[in-house]
């Protein structure tokens, strides 16, 4: 088996083995469906409740995508500001860290109260969760310029903007994508957590809301089906970001070269 095939076949084999074991254990111990449904039950619920669950998935994905987009735009802008001015970075970075360490569950109710539009409130919550890796990694990347190349640019009298566009931004791309991989997952987590908080008020109908409702109704197969969709959405986001990173870096950066070989 080639290395390329192994990258896909090996994890798929682990997944299949896990599902088979799950099915076998549920059958063997006769576990009731309201405690742990079998994979087949989860699948059949997914098909049966598809219209409801898919519309909820779209709501959650919309919040996640908007939050990720906002995190990228704002995060990159803040990173650019930080790189232009050390004083600015020193003054503001502690507050960026504050955003990162404050539990979103604690501030989500406030945001939901302050922002009238529920979608906007959820997007803000998810953005707060997702933005830190973008800021942190992009700032680091913009600063991690090869000193030799920086000398070349200085020697040929490069303007500040030329250095930014032709040197700093390309140098920062691998760092940016590393941050984006983390942020993609965090945006989804932020969206789900915010939905949970808002969902208790009955204002949203994303997947988190479906999980809450299913839990209250002891509809555990639907709960598992919604969970499965969230997990698959997370994997899809990761794969999309990885694909973007691969397309941007495949010709030159070590992190992507192994895929080419």
């Amino acid at each position, binding site marked *: 088996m080639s290395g390329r095939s192994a990258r896909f076949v090996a994890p798929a084999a682990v997944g299949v083995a896990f599902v088979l074991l799950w099915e076998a254990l549920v059958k063997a111990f006769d576990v009731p469906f309201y405690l742990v449904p079998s994979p087949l039950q989860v699948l059949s619920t997914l098909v049966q409740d598809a219209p409801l669950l898919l519309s909820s998935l779209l709501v959650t994905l919309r919040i996640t995508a908007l939050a990720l987009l906002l995190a990228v735009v704002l995060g990159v802008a803040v990173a650019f500001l930080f790189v232009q001015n050390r004083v600015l970075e020193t003054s503001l970075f502690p507050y960026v860290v504050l955003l990162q360490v404050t539990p979103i569950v604690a501030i989500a109710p406030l945001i939901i109260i302050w922002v009238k539009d529920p979608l906007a409130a959820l997007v803000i919550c998810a953005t707060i969760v997702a933005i830190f890796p973008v800021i942190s990694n992009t700032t680091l990347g913009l600063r991690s310029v090869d000193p*030799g190349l920086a000398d*070349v640019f200085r020697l040929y009298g490069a303007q500040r903007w030329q250095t930014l566009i032709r040197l700093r931004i390309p140098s920062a791309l691998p760092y940016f994508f590393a941050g984006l991989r983390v942020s993609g997952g965090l945006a989804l987590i932020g969206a789900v957590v915010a939905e949970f908080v808002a969902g208790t008020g009955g204002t949203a109908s994303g997947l988190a809301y479906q999980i809450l409702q299913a839990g209250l109704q002891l509809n555990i197969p639907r709960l598992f089906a919604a969970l499965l969709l969230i997990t698959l959405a997370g994997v899809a986001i990761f794969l999309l970001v990885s694909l973007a990173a691969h397309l941007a870096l495949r010709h*030159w950066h070590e992190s992507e070269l192994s895929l080419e070989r």
Partner: protein
Amino acid sequence: MSGPGTGQREPALLRAAEAEPARASVVAVDVRGASKTYPNGVHALAPIDLEVCAGDFATVLGPSGCGKSTLLRMIGGLSTPTAGSVVLWPQSPTEATMPSAAGEGGHRVHIAAGRRAKTELAFVFQSPTLMPWASVERNVRLPLDLAGEADDGALRVEAALRLVALSDFARVYPRELSGGMQMRASIARALVTEPRLLVMDEPFGALDEITRSRLDRDIRELWARRSLTVLFVTHSIYEAVYLSTRVLVMSARPGRIIGELAIGEPHPRTDAFRVSERYARWCKQLSEMLAAGSDEAGGTRPLSAS
């Protein structure tokens, strides 16, 4: 196979005057009392006087850490002398000046920035310093792009790549090239601006011996063909003798020039020269100068082979 002067007993400097490409007495680099002390207190360079004339292939030779690169960075405008001055092409009306770090009146250093100044100096670093995300062609084109000189850019890039025999590799990425080819691309990037002065900071130090010899020969041919002025840094005595018209020997830190040797050998210098008795003599002489420099502190001593 060796040069026309091989085996003859002529005064070294006379042989040099006859054999080397015609040298105008135009000063390309004028370093006066330039010294460098870093903010952490490291005294990298004692006050240095150095003059490189147009057409010279001048090599600065010294032990590791003696301040050779610091000297070159000051000449390239990448570092400011703590005292003294560095001026490029002092007779040129486009000469750029600014105060030294010490702010003393009359001290001048060259400013690297500025369109005119850019074409007067090109720098080849110890490592190829290529942008890994750009093709060889785009790397070579960089100085032209930065200067906004795009009109005949494609032609100049093509010519520069041809000079270093990389025409077939214009579209590949640096990682697809060998170390030697990457260094050639770096040299092409320096040549694309058609500089009057080429400054090279130990460019082949990380390469294997065979590649290094080949690039030494190539750069020597380029120097002769393009009537370049080259200021080269190395810690290899053998490379210095093969390449140079003049070798300036530096002492250990704080670096200062303790001797100068005119290598009076004709051009072209063939591979046979590198195994000749004369070559060995030049190397021995340089080696003795280096050893003396590490033992004692002396002034600049112009010497020649005899």
